[in-house]
C-alpha cells in the first residue's frame, strides 16, 4: 500500500482523511447542541413533556457523537506538529494563539459543562442544568469562531509580517482574526452545521412518522426540522453566493478551478454545468455550458471579462477536477435542501405535513445530505487553496515534517484501520439510537431508574399537562 508515494503526499492524505472524519462530528454537534438548548428552553418555558422527552432522546445521541468528535479532534491538535512541523514553526506565532484561544474559550467550556449536561439534571436542578446545556452550545459556536478564523487566515492571510527566522508574526491581531474571508466562512459553516443537524433530525422524525404518523415526539421534531430547512436553506444559498464573491476577490484562482475556467473570456464567461476537467490539456472535455451565465453570476454582467487559469503559471494551479466536482456536489446538495424546504412548506400550508409519505421519504433520503455538502464544501475550499498551505505565501511542499515516507505511510494505515473500526461501530450505535422511536418518559444517557420526576419538572404548565393525562 502507498508504494511510490512521497512523504508529503502521504501527509496530505493523512490530514485529509483524519480531517474528513473529524469534521462530520463537530458539524453535527454544533447544530445538535443548539437544538438541545432550544428543546430544554421550550420545556422550561412551557412545561410540555414532549420537549424533555425529545431532549433526552437527542442527548443520548449527542453524547455518542460528541465523544467521537473529541477523540478525533485531539488527533488534529497534534497532527500539525507530527506531520506539518515546518508549517507549525512558521505559522505557529499567528495561528497557534487562535487555536490556544479555541481551547481556552471553547473546549474547556464544552468539556467542563458536558458532564453536568449529560448526567447532572437530578443533581443540580433544571435551572443550572439549562445553564450547562447553554454553555455547551455556546462553546461549540465559540470553537467554530476560532478554528474558522485560523483556517480563513490560511486562505486569506492578513495583518501579518515575517520575522528574521522566517516565521509569520502578527502585526495586527484584529486583522489576523477578522481576515477578509473569515466572516463569510463563519456564517457559511455555522449555517451548514445547523442545516446538517436539521436534516438528520428531520429524517429521524420522518422515519418514525412513516411508521406512526401520530407519534407526538416525531411530529414535533419533524416540524421543527422542516422549519429549519425552509428558512435556512435559502439563506445558506445566499450566504454561499456572497462567500463565492469574496473568494473571487481574494482567491481568484480557486474560482477558476471551481468553475473549470481554463481559458480567459474577454466578453463574458460561460457557466459550465458539467464536464470533465482535463488538467494536463488545460480544458474541460464534454462541457455542457450556458454562455455568459458565469459572468452574470460572478460579475453581475453578461459581458464582463473573466481571466482563466491560462493567466496563472501551471505550478500554481490547484487540482482542478477535485475542486470542480466537489463544488458541484455541494451546490447540488444545497439545491436539494432548498427543494425539501419548499416542498415541506407547501404541504404545511395545506395541512398535510404529517401525512405525506412522499415528503417523509424525501426527508429520510436527505439524512446524509448535510454531511455530504459539508465534506464537499471543505474539499472545494481546501483543495482550491493548493498548492499552498498559507495562500500565496507558503507552499504545501515547504510545510511538511522531515519524515521518511514509511513512517507516514504506517501511521496513515494505522489511522485508516482504527478510524474505520471505531467510527463504524459508533455510527451503528448512533443509528440504533435513532431507530428507536422517542417515547413518553424518555431517559437521558443516565441509566438510573425513572424516579422522582416531580423534583425536576418545571412548575409552569406541568400540572396542567399532568391533569390532562
Amino acid at each position, binding site marked *: 500500500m502507498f508504494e511510490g508515494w512521497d512523504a508529503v503526499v502521504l501527509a496530505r492524505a493523512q490530514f485529509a482523511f483524519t480531517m474528513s472524519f473529524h469534521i462530520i462530528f463537530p458539524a453535527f454537534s454544533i447544530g445538535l447542541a443548539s437544538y438541545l438548548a432550544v428543546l430544554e428552553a421550550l420545556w422550561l418555558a412551557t412545561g410540555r413533556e414532549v420537549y424533555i422527552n425529545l431532549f433526552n432522546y437527542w442527548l443520548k445521541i449527542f453524547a455518542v457523537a460528541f*465523544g467521537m468528535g473529541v477523540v478525533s479532534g485531539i488527533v488534529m491538535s497534534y497532527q500539525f506538529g507530527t506531520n506539518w512541523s*515546518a508549517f507549525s514553526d512558521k505559522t505557529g506565532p499567528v495561528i497557534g494563539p487562535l487555536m490556544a484561544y479555541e481551547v*481556552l474559550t471553547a473546549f474547556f467550556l464544552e468539556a467542563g459543562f458536558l458532564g453536568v449536561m449529560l448526567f447532572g439534571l437530578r443533581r443540580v436542578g433544571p435551572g443550572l442544568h439549562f445553564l450547562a446545556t447553554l454553555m455547551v452550545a455556546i462553546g461549540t459556536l465559540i470553537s467554530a469562531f476560532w478554528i474558522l478564523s485560523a483556517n480563513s487566515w490560511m486562505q486569506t492571510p492578513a495583518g501579518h509580517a515575517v520575522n528574521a527566522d522566517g516565521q509569520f508574526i502578527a502585526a495586527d491581531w484584529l486583522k489576523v482574526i477578522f481576515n477578509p474571508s473569515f466572516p463569510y466562512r463563519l456564517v457559511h459553516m455555522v449555517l451548514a452545521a445547523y442545516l446538517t443537524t436539521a436534516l438528520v433530525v428531520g429524517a429521524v422524525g420522518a422515519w418514525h412518522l412513516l411508521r406512526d404518523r401520530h407519534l407526538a415526539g416525531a411530529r414535533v421534531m419533524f416540524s421543527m426540522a422542516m422549519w429549519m430547512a425552509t428558512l435556512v436553506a435559502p439563506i445558506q444559498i445566499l450566504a454561499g453566493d456572497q462567500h463565492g464573491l469574496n473568494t473571487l476577490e481574494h482567491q481568484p484562482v480557486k474560482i477558476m478551478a471551481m468553475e473549470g475556467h481554463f481559458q480567459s473570456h474577454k466578453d463574458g464567461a460561460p457557466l459550465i454545468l458539467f464536464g470533465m476537467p482535463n488538467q494536463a490539456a488545460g480544458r474541460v472535455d464534454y462541457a455542457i455550458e450556458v454562455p455568459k451565465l458565469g459572468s452574470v453570476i460572478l460579475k453581475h454582467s453578461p459581458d464582463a471579462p473573466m481571466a482563466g487559469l491560462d493567466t496563472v503559471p501551471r505550478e500554481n494551479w490547484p487540482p482542478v477536477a477535485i475542486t470542480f466536482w466537489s463544488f458541484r456536489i455541494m451546490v447540488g446538495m444545497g439545491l436539494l435542501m432548498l427543494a425539501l424546504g419548499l416542498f415541506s412548506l407547501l404541504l404545511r400550508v395545506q395541512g398535510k405535513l404529517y401525512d405525506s409519505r412522499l415528503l417523509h421519504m424525501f426527508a429520510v433520503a436527505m439524512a446524509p445530505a448535510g454531511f455530504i455538502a459539508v465534506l464537499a464544501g471543505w474539499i472545494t475550499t481546501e483543495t482550491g487553496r493548493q498548492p499552498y498551505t498559507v495562500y500565496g505565501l507558503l507552499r504545501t511542499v515547504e510545510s511538511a515534517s522531515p519524515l521518511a515516507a514509511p513512517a507516514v505511510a504506517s501511521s496513515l494505515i494505522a489511522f485508516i484501520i*482504527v478510524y474505520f473500526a471505531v467510527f463504524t461501530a459508533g455510527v451503528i450505535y448512533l443509528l440504533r439510537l435513532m431507530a428507536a422511536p422517542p417515547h413518553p418518559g424518555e431517559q437521558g444517557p443516565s441509566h438510573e431508574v425513572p424516579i422522582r420526576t416531580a423534583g425536576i419538572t418545571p412548575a409552569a404548565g406541568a400540572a396542567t399537562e399532568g391533569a390532562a393525562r
Partner: protein
Amino acid sequence: MIPIDLAIIWAFIIAFAVFVYVVMDGFDLGLGILFPLFPEKRDRDVIMNSVAPVWDGNETWLVLGGGGLMAAFPLAYSVLMPALYTPMIAMLLGLVFRGVAFEFRWRTTKERNKWDIAFAGGSLLATLAQGIALGAILQGIHVSGRHYAGGWWDWLTPFSILTGVALVIGYALLGATWLVMKTEGELRDRAYHLSWMLLLAMLGAIGAVSIATPFLHVQYTQRWFSWPNILLTAPVPVAVAAVTVMLLRSLANKYDYQPFFLTLALFALSYAGLGISMYPYIVPQSITIWQAAAPENSQIFMLFGVAVLIPLILGYTAWAYWVFRGKVRPESGYH
C-alpha cells in the same frame, strides 16, 4: 521597571498545563490500566461512572498542552513532534479507543467486552507512549537548524522504556487511590490492596529513573550534585521521602482522601525534579526556552486570555467535580 521574561512565564504556563493534565487524566488513564483486574461488570460500571462526567475535561488539558506549545514555543513543538512521531501517534490512537469506550460500552451488551478491552488497552497504550515520550525528550533529540534531524526510531531506548513503564505504574497508583476515594466495600478494599503494591513499585520506578537520569548527560549530574546547586536540589528527595512516609501511614490507616492527594504530591515532586533537570532547555541540550519562544506579541496576546480564562476554567471544573462528589454507588450510577 523590572523586565518581565515572557519566555519564563510561558514555560511555567505550559508546564502547569501539562501538570494539570497529569493530575487529571493520570487517574483516569490509571483506571483503564487497572480495568483488567476488575472483571466483574458491576465493578467496571462503578469505575467508569466515577470518571464519566469529567474525563472529557481532563483530556482537554492535553489539547491545551499541545496547542499552547505550538502557540508559545512553535520551534519546540515543530522539533519535538516529528522526533516523537511514533509514540505520539500511538498515544493518539490509544486515546481514541479509550475515549469512545466511555459511551460505546453503554450502547451494546453483545460487544461490551470488546469496548472494555479497548478502554484498558487504549489507556495502557496512551500512558506507555506518554512515558516513552518523556524519556525520549530527556535523553536528548538531534536538531539541525530549525528541524528535527534524527531517525524515526531514535525515541526507542532502554531509558525511554523505563520511563514508559514508570508512568504506567504511576498512573495505575493514581487510579487505585482514586478508587479508594470514590468507592465503597469490597471494591475499595481491593483498591487499597493494589495501592500498596503499586506504591512500592512506584518508589522503585522513581528510584530507577532518578539513578539513570544523571548518566544520560553530564549536565544533569552537575545540575543535581554540584555545589551550591545541591542546596536547592537536596530538598526534593527529602520531600519525596517525607511524602512517602505520610502516604504509607494514610494507607495503613485506610483513609479515604489522603492516599490520592499524597500520590499527587509525589507526582508533583517528581515533576519538579524533571523541571530542575531540564531547565532552561525545552528540547534538552539543543533548544532553550528563549530560542523556542514565539515572538513577544504572540505571547502577550495569549497571556491576557490565560490570566482571565485559566482561573475561570479551574473554577467551573471544580464545580463539575463538586456536583459529582462523594462515593459512586452501583445503583445510583450516572449511566
